[in-house]
Structures are given as structure tokens and as C-alpha cells.
């Protein structure tokens, strides 16, 4: 299953995107690979100024940590990223443009959960008393409810 999803991802990467994004660099942990995509420039710039800069890269927060789920998520996200990047019209804000994904980019449930798990991976001990095992969707303490500025600066 993991393999077929990976394969799906590679088919999804259009030649242009694949090249542009630095080829296999996408599979590494270097934030620069994310930032190869101009859409990622804003988070990248502010991540460089934030307190997590020294301790966590993009993938530490946005990709699951164990090896297999990580590459599966990469495959899934890679597919979305490249499809999105390839098919999104260059001027999505032009009236009448048919957009593939909404801009500004919004994190979706799947990645939101990945993120939450990663917060707990590093801060689980500290937040143990308040989390009490409730990391799932409905009844969890959502870290980003208060700390939404943590990765790359305040939105507001």
C-alpha cells in the first residue's frame, strides 16, 4: 500500500515540477527543499527568524516521524504539492481563474494532525498533564489554538 502511494506520487510529479523542486531533494529534511517552491517562501522566511529555527526543520513539524509514515505522507503531500503547483493557474487571483487549491494555503485536517503529533513528540512530557492522551480531533487540546505563531511567525 505504501509503495503504490509512493508510485502515485511520482506519477503526479510533472517533469517540470520535479526538476524545479530539486528532484529527490524533496525527500530530504532540508528546509531549503521546501523553499524551492516560491509558495513556501513566507513560512520559510519567518521560520528562519523564529525560535524553532535552531531546533526544528519544516519536516520535523510537518511530516510524521517514523520512517514509513513519513515517506507515505511525503508521497501524499508531494502529490498534492506538485499537482497543485503544476495545475494552479499562474495568476490564481485573476477574476475567473480556475484554481486547484485556495490561496492563501490552508493546512488541512490530515496535516493538522501530523503537526499536533509532532508538537507532542517534542513537548509531550511537558504537556502531559494537560493533554492526558487526548490528541485526536474532537476532544484534544489543540496546540495551535494558542501557539499558531510557533513555526513561522504570527499571522495577525
Amino acid at each position, binding site marked *: 500500500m505504501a509503495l503504490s502511494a509512493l508510485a502515485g506520487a511520482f506519477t503526479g510529479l510533472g517533469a517540470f515540477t520535479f526538476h524545479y523542486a530539486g528532484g529527490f531533494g524533496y525527500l530530504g529534511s532540508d528546509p531549503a527543499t521546501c523553499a524551492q517552491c516560491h509558495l513556501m517562501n513566507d513560512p520559510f522566511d519567518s521560520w528562519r527568524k523564529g525560535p524553532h529555527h535552531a531546533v526544528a526543520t519544516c519536516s520535523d513539524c510537518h511530516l510524521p516521524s517514523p520512517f514509513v*509514515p513519513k515517506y507515505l505522507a511525503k508521497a501524499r503531500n508531494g502529490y498534492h504539492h506538485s499537482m497543485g503547483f503544476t495545475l494552479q493557474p499562474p495568476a490564481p487571483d485573476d477574476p475567473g481563474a480556475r484554481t486547484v487549491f485556495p490561496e492563501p494555503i490552508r493546512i488541512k485536517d490530515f496535516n493538522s494532525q501530523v503537526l499536533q503529533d509532532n508538537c507532542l513528540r517534542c513537548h509531550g512530557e*511537558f504537556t502531559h*498533564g494537560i493533554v492526558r*492522551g487526548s490528541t485526536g480531533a474532537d476532544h484534544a487540546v489543540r496546540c495551535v489554538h494558542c*501557539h499558531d505563531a510557533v513555526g513561522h511567525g504570527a499571522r495577525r
Partner: protein
Amino acid sequence: NIFERKQEARNPFLKLIEVGEDDVDPAKWGVNWPRQYDGYLRTSEPTATKYGGSQVGPEGSMPPQKADRDPWLRRIFAGYLFAVDYRDRRGHAFMLHDQEVTKRNVPGGKKQSGNCLHCHASVMPLYRRLGAEALPHGTPQEQVQRGLEAVAGMDYWDAHQMLTEITGKAHPVSCVDCHDPATMELRVTRPAFLAGMRRLAASDAPVPHLPSVEQWRRGSRSAPYDPNVDGTRQEMRSYVCGQCHVEYYCGKGMTIFFPWDRGLKAEEIEATYDGMTVQDRRFKDWTHAETGVEVLKAQHPEFEVWSQGIHARSGVACADCHMPYKREGALKVSEHWVRSPLLQIPRACATCHPYGEKELETRVEAIQDRHFALLTRAGEAAVAMLDALVAVRKGYDEAGWQEALEKDPEVRRLGELQRAAQWRLDFVAAENSMGFHAPQELARLLAESIDLSRQAEIGALRLLARSPTPAAAPGQNSKASPADPPIQPRSYCRRNP
């Protein structure tokens, strides 16, 4: 499933001793959770902010009378116990004591029923005991409800004594009132809140800030809405406070209830009261001594007002600001020293608003100063209204005035205006955030209150001008001028159903 998350396996709380439903003494819980207990105990410390906190003097003294700052309060409460003794609130540690010593509730005065304990004591064992006696085979929920009704029928001091006997000592709000002793999860216990939320959910008032209610409404509705079952964790962080920080009615002869049948806005609550009949008359809290008009009393509608604000709409809960997380050694815990967020701005506000402490304080102050100026203006308008109504009343004898209030459309209209104006003003004044919880909504209510007060004053002047000797012919003056605008106090409400 490889995506399955690693749930924390171990129980987060190593319990040294067991606690149960009857353990209302927080000291026992403190053995297991000393950090939270420490915070809880500190609610006895005096604190002060520009408009909030408990502005108390030396040890043992009482908070000041509210009317010291806002003298118009005495006028609008004329003839009611709130004109006698009505002080600033203070920390949770004092809630039972302050209820015992207020002149609104003197021993032997037979003024208050056991209802009052609903929000000032850890009272559930009393409800359960009386309920079990009356309904030995009822469900626990039925028993609590029956117990509540039984306590409503008792004199305050009798109920107080019985509670003391059951629990050894009566306590203010305690751990067990907000936490399930088995799991420590939040839960709500107070029957009036459970019933109020049931009725709110069953209504069609929009509550976009309470997603679980909207979700329940979309469902089968086979079981009534139950905060403990349906509420999200984030909602529970406000619901526990909504057990007490709400508008209520608990006069003698009635079981305490929260008037949310039509929604949480001031006008919706007013409509609920206006739609109620007690002994064949429209519901009232008391009869205003100066004017003889039957009026309403609002109490601390924090939950309702928060509901109209942008924070509630953004999912920000009472506990987020009033019980922010704090670092204690290697652990994050909830601050159980429940108090003004302005005393702990970095934790209460700055995680969401990344500005300095001084800047955030100034932002709140800008809102509160604007609000206070408007509140004072509305208070002055209310006093002018009362003066004018008193002047009109002078022309009548007692019976004539009663009759006029009921039958003369113009006089009656004055009474309606006073009731509506005073309700709005009191609703805002009784709310404890000095405007912060919902600045625009509260300014709107004050604006309406001013308008209605002044309209009453105008109506009174017109009456005085038209009938120079009204006492002589009180019933004559009974055709309302068609030029009189309708009162429309609920226009906003209707515009936004």
C-alpha cells in the same frame, strides 16, 4: 493501521488517594494535585485592576458597595434588596462567606431560598440526598432534579444547615464541581445549567460559537442535548464557568432556572421573561418602589455576553483567559487561581496576541474606558427617567396610579419603557468585564437603554403637559397619540433572528 497515533498509555494522574463524588473538601484532592490546589487556595488573596478584581482594603474587610462608584444603581434598584447591599465580586474562596454575610440574606429574614446555594457552595451532595429520599428508584439525574426542587422550597438557612450536616462543612465551589473524580475530565454538574442548555439547544437561536450544539441540532435529536456527552473539550472549558456566571432567576417559590429558551441575547432573555406568567401576571423580579413599575433584575451574564463577542466566535474559552496554562517545573498546568486576566497578561493573552504586556493592557483599557463613560451616561439617563416618572406619579393617588399603569395606554407605555431601559442597563452593568467580553454588543445595549430612558422621560413630560391635574381625572387621558413612536425594544432581535 500504521497511521494510528501513539496514545499516551499511562494514566496521566498518579493518584495517591481516591476521591469521589462526595468529596467536596478540596484539601483531599490537593493530595493528588498539589499544584492546582495551591492555585485554588490563592483565590482568597485580594487583587485589583482598574475596573476589576476585588478592590478590598485591609484583611477581613468587605469589598466596596458598587453604588459607591455608580450611585445611580441605588435608584434603579429602589425597593429591592440590591439597593441595600450589593458589592464588588471577589475570589472564589469567598463565595460562600459573602453569601452568608450579605444583607440581602440575613438569618431569620426568610428572604432567600436554598436556591442560592446552587452557585455559592459545593452543593451536589445535598441535591442527591434529598432526591434519593424523594425518588428512591429514580435515575441519578431525576434525583438531582428532584433534590433541586426540594432545596428551592427550603429557607436558605435550613438548606445551608442540612448541607453542612451532610458534607461536614459547607465549601465554596470545589474540584468535584468541575471535574469527574474518576478521570479528572471536565464535566458540568449544575442542574440549572444542564436544563438551560437543553432548552437553548432545542431553540433555533443561532449559536455559532458552540459547534456541538449546532451539530446536535443537525442530528436525530433523540436524546436531549447534554453538555457532558455532546460538548467538545474546548466548550467544556467555558461550560464549567457557565454553571454560575449567568443570568438566572431563583426567587422564593420557584426552582432556579436559566432563561435561555429563546437564546442568549439580552432581548431574547427579555422575551423569555416577558412570555412567562406567574399567578396570572406577567413575570417580574420586583416592583420598583419609586414608580410602581414591575421590572426585571439581571445578574452577572458573563456567559451570555461572552457568547456575543469575537473571542467566543473564535473558540476562545473562559479558561483560556482566566485559567491560562502556566509552567510549573517540568509540567504545564492550568492556573487554578481564577482571577482577572489583566493580572497575568503574558500567559492569558500574549500567546495569541504577540504584543507586550503594557500594550495589551492599554488595549483593554481603551475598550473599558470607552465602556465606562457610556455606562455612566446610561445611568444618568435612567435617573432622569425615574425623576420624570416620579413627577407624573405625584399627580395620582396610590390606587389611581395602579389603575393608570394597567389601563391608561400612555402611562402603561411609560412603564414598559422603564422596564426595557432598566433591563438593558442592568444587564450591561451586572456583567463583570467592563465591556471587554463583547464591546460593540454592550455599547449597543447601552445606546438602546439611553434611548428608551429618554423616551420615557419625554413621554412623562408630555403627560404632565397634557393633564395639568391628572389626579382629578386619571383615567381620562387614555388615547395614545398616534405620533408616539412604537417602543420597539426588540427591533434588533427581530432583524437578526
